[in-house]
């Protein structure tokens, strides 16, 4: 066991996999000699060679396309898109090709590509360094979509992603790289070393997809969330003194419907929280599933807490970000006696 922040945990996952499996290769903009703009691949090119950790042209479409070709030829590429906001030039290759290759070739060809990309706001990155595009990928049949909220899960999920023969969109909430963040930008930053999930096994281990983590058991209300909002939601519930059950989804596709519904059946109330914009966000899918499965258990309308339906504005970061206040209002609403 070692203390790691999320950057180090992700680095360790790739280090382990590069060491175990000669077919694993990393590729992306600035990831090789430099080690990535967030330093997630630091030291790996030096350790495994320039042919295993490739710097690439600035062409996300070309990165995804060549990763597919490499995967078809027996490699396991882990491609970094420098910011999730820049994944769209690769969208056609992801959605029309990567996601559907196994299907259209009836399993004769498939491309085990992992696409890692930092997402989310809270770092004053403005409209093109803050987006949370997960919902879009969850709508594309054939993709697995994952978002860890802590170093321990991050490493285990990334190893699962690399070992998985399906393509995985692996979203890294960059606000959590250095420590958990409860949504209050005025508080001093907290490092992962103060958090139990900053304790990370140095070797190989996996965290499976499709299994949500109940990060806090509770009886009064279920909060379904993932990524940075795990901490924001927990802090909001704690501040209100509400006995909330907090569920960290970890993987969105596949979705752990059982854990969610078991909880909602117990609490009868539910708040869903994500950073992404509301309209057709992944919260809508979660809400729909709960409504379909637990309709008769619900004692109040499920509430969605989300970013607003605007681009992410640089100057209004904290008015935009779904902070504790927004979660608290939703919790209060959902807890109103009926």
């Amino acid at each position: 066991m070692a203390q790691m922040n999320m950057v180090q945990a992700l680095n360790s996952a790739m280090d382990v996999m590069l060491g175990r499996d000669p077919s694993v290769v990393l590729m992306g903009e600035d990831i090789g000699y430099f080690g990535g703009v967030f330093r997630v691949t630091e030291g790996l090119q030096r350790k495994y060679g320039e042919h295993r950790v490739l710097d690439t042209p600035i062409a996300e479409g070309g990165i995804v396309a060549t990763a597919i070709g490499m995967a078809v030829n027996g490699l396991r590429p882990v491609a970094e898109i420098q910011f999730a906001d820049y994944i769209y030039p690769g969208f056609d290759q992801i959605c029309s090709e990567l996601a559907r290759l196994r299907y259209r070739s009836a399993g004769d060809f498939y491309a085990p590509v992992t696409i890692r990309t930092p997402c989310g706001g809270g770092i004053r990155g403005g409209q093109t360094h803050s987006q949370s595009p997960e919902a879009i990928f969850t709508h594309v049949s054939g993709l697995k979509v994952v978002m860890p909220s802590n170093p321990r899960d991050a490493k285990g999920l990334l190893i699962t992603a690399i070992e998985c023969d399906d393509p995985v969109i692996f979203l890294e909430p960059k606000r959590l790289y250095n420590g958990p963040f409860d949504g209050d930008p005025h508080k001093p930053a907290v490092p992962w070393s103060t958090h139990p999930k900053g304790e990370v096994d140095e070797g190989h281990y996996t965290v499976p997809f499709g299994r949500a983590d109940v990060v806090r058991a509770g009886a009064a209300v279920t909060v379904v969330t993932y990524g940075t909002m795990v901490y924001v939601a927990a802090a909001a519930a704690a501040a209100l003194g509400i006995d909330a059950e907090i569920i960290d989804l970890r993987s969105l596709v596949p979705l752990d419907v059982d854990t969610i519904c078991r909880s909602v059946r117990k609490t009868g109330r539910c708040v869903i929280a994500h950073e992404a914009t509301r309209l057709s966000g992944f919260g809508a899918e979660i809400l729909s599933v709960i409504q379909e499965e637990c309709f008769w258990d619900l004692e109040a309308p499920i509430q969605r807490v989300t970013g607003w339906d605007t681009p992410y504005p640089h100057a209004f970061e904290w008015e935009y970000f779904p902070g504790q206040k927004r979660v608290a209002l939703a919790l209060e609403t959902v807890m109103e006696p009926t």
Partner: protein
Amino acid sequence: MNKRSRLHLPRAPARPGEAPDFGYVALSPAGAVARPDVNARARDVEDLAVNLVRVLDDAGAALGPWHPHLDAAELQVGLRHMLLTRLYDERMQRTQRAGKISFYIRSLGEEAVSVASCMALRPGDMLFPSYRNQGLHIARGMPLVDLMCQLLSNTRDMCKGRQLPVMYHSRAANIFSISGNLATQFPQAVGWAMAAAIKGEDHLAASWLGEGSSAEADFHHALLFASVYQAPAILNVVNNQWAISTFQGYAGGEQRSFAARGPGYGVPGVRVDGNDFLAVYAVTRWAAERARTGAGPTLIEHVTYRAAAHSTSDDPTRYRAKDDHLHWPLGDPIERLKRHLIRSGDWSEARHEALIAELEALVSASWKEAVSYGTMSEGPKLDPDLMFEDVFEKMPAHLIKQRDAMRRERG
């Protein structure tokens, strides 16, 4: 406003009612273009992107430094593959017209592009085709029955009913799955080639797309990544002059050849007579040797003509001069190879007729077998459960649920 407009608009050489006009096609005489060393630097072979590599002249003589000097036996195999491709095409077109398959795309007039390229490569080389490359599948020896079962989406369809007709693939024959989205295969082929280089293997990847498709971003990505990593890839632009109704000028062919894109990236570009079996073979061989000796990728423009409609959904009399392919200055690839073989005493009209009869019988027998595995309306059917498989490696819970719902719905 229109009168003052200064926007340039490329013009098709001949529209319906006009006389065909192929004066815009820059030709070189057979044998006229020099053949550089396979290790020549890209910058030293830029004339290859302007001139037109040709071996066969109009009389069927093979001339010049690109003459590949193939055995007669090999040429006869090439002729056979091209003829089989054509006869298969003709029959499948009729079959679609008869309502037995939903859709078809012919390669009429472009048979040499696929067959000669394929024969110049090795079986371990990976092919990333477009939808107009059935010659590749035939030259790699895929049974016609397999291709026909795909067209029928029947119980032996290698795509399990999931793809439109003509979107064949074969893992065994190293032919990649065809996408409906144009051009996506081009940079994928480069990635495959990069992996071969990373693994230190000797194989190369070859891909094909239409000149219209070269406008897509993927074309640029393919050339760029191939150039940066000097990937062992052969990138083929099949310039058959048309993209559905759109003349090649709209893909940028008015200002420069498509081969000329290569040198801009430091990739040699070769313009070849796509209806000349020997020239296509020789140029592909040259590119393959480059790739295998570490000299990097090559872009090949095959100058040819789409003699038929775009697909069975298309009617070209709406947008181009009638029967214009009869005026195409590079002739017909099958006729040209046949003439060459007869001239050199290795073929005859009688053998040709006999071959046609043999291949027609093969097509008929294959079709008979194919329909025994199911047609659109009769015989065995694919299990609809297959709809939910292969979305992921293992079927996840939500798809199991949906599959069960589908079963209930079907009663």
